[in-house]
């Protein structure tokens, strides 16, 4: 009985000790766990020198311009976090999810003129999963994907129910 309790304490202490050690380590290295830097952080303190880093944020609505660099497609757009924004240039093929209003993570270097020359552009996906016809319905009510995330999912269901109700009323 006593030995069992001692083992229980030992296992508890092992998990607790390791848990708190890990939390402390992660607290200390919090910033190294970040995948990207947001524009307002660059505005506050620009990364020094010629460093390659990842810049993340939303593609600003109305900022996307398609260009041509030789025979390769090139783009210019602004990445914003709502507070500050950075001009980004990129030569290459964009991922399927790339559009205005989408979150992106770009990797590259800051240029002397303050713009960001990206070597890689990744598109983020948010936590919203929405069927195509629902998106069409929302667009009819005035939602524009380039201006940001769709209204909360709980509201779509209400909208869908309302649509179903009104259609049955019409039918009846």
């Amino acid at each position, binding site marked *: 009985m006593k030995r069992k309790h001692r083992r229980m304490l030992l296992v508890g202490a092992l998990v607790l000790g390791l848990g708190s050690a890990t939390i402390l380590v992660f607290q200390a290295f919090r910033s190294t766990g970040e*995948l990207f830097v947001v524009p307002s952080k660059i505005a506050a303190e620009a990364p020094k020198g010629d460093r390659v880093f990842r810049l993340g944020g939303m593609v600003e609505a109305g900022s996307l311009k398609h260009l041509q660099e030789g025979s390769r497609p090139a783009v210019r757009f602004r990445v914003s976090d709502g507070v500050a924004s950075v001009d980004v240039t990129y030569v290459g093929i964009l991922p399927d999810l790339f*559009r205005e209003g989408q979150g992106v993570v770009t990797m590259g270097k800051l240029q002397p003129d303050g713009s960001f020359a990206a070597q890689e552009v990744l598109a983020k996906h948010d936590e919203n999963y929405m069927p195509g016809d629902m998106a069409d319905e929302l667009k009819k009510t005035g939602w524009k994907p380039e201006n940001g995330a769709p209204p909360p*999912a709980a509201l779509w269901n209400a909208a869908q129910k309302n649509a179903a109700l009104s259609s049955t009323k019409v039918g009846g």
Partner: protein
Amino acid sequence: MSDMTSTTAQAAGGRNLHRFANPGQFLRLSARVLPPVAAIGLVLTLTGLVWGLFFSPSDWQQHDAVRIMYVHVPSAWLASFGYFSLALASASALIWRHPLADLAAVEIGPVGAAFTALCLATGSLWGKPMWGAWWVWDARMTSVLVLFFLYLGHIALVRAFDDPQRGYRAGAILALVGVVNLPIIKYSVEWWNTLHQPASITLTGAPTMAPSMLWPLLLAAIGGMFGFSALVIARLRAAVMERRIRALTMAQIRDVA
């Protein structure tokens, strides 16, 4: 020499027979539990997958690529659920010295590792067309890769000793150490900025997913839980029976000698 082996075999055989007095009860109980658990798992998983892969709507911006989610998300949940059950089995093996818990830990490992591999593979297949990259070292993906390595380490460690008891002990400690990774996986998308999206389904808030996609996903996930349990129970039964056969063979050899 032969005398020595026979005495150690006797000791091992005696201990095993004693240790698996209780596992006899497990064999009887699991024989009744296994068929319904396996059947429920199969029916729910198949319903969820067929619904998700063929009948649920496509996403407005991912189009049909969203269907990878019906495999990816359940396997991700099972990867964490499996590791949690591995840690529970290990803790009860260390504290109560329950012999079945040791065997359960050994048998959970490969099943959990398989689902983690499936999660990583499907995630990668989705990531290339959607994000534009097969793999990125963000906090979520890195922590799940660490989970996969923890599983592999556990699988290797429990089999690495001549005396299985020492292997079980070492594996149990590794499993408990690795538990710190589970909250890191869960909260990685909140603690750090990651490429991976945050959770759509939480215990506290409304899901950010249309019900027509949520239902098949939940069915596949619940079916996966049953399927996972059925696989582990079946493996555990086989392991207990193997021990019994070995103990009986030992006893037979002893009788002949």
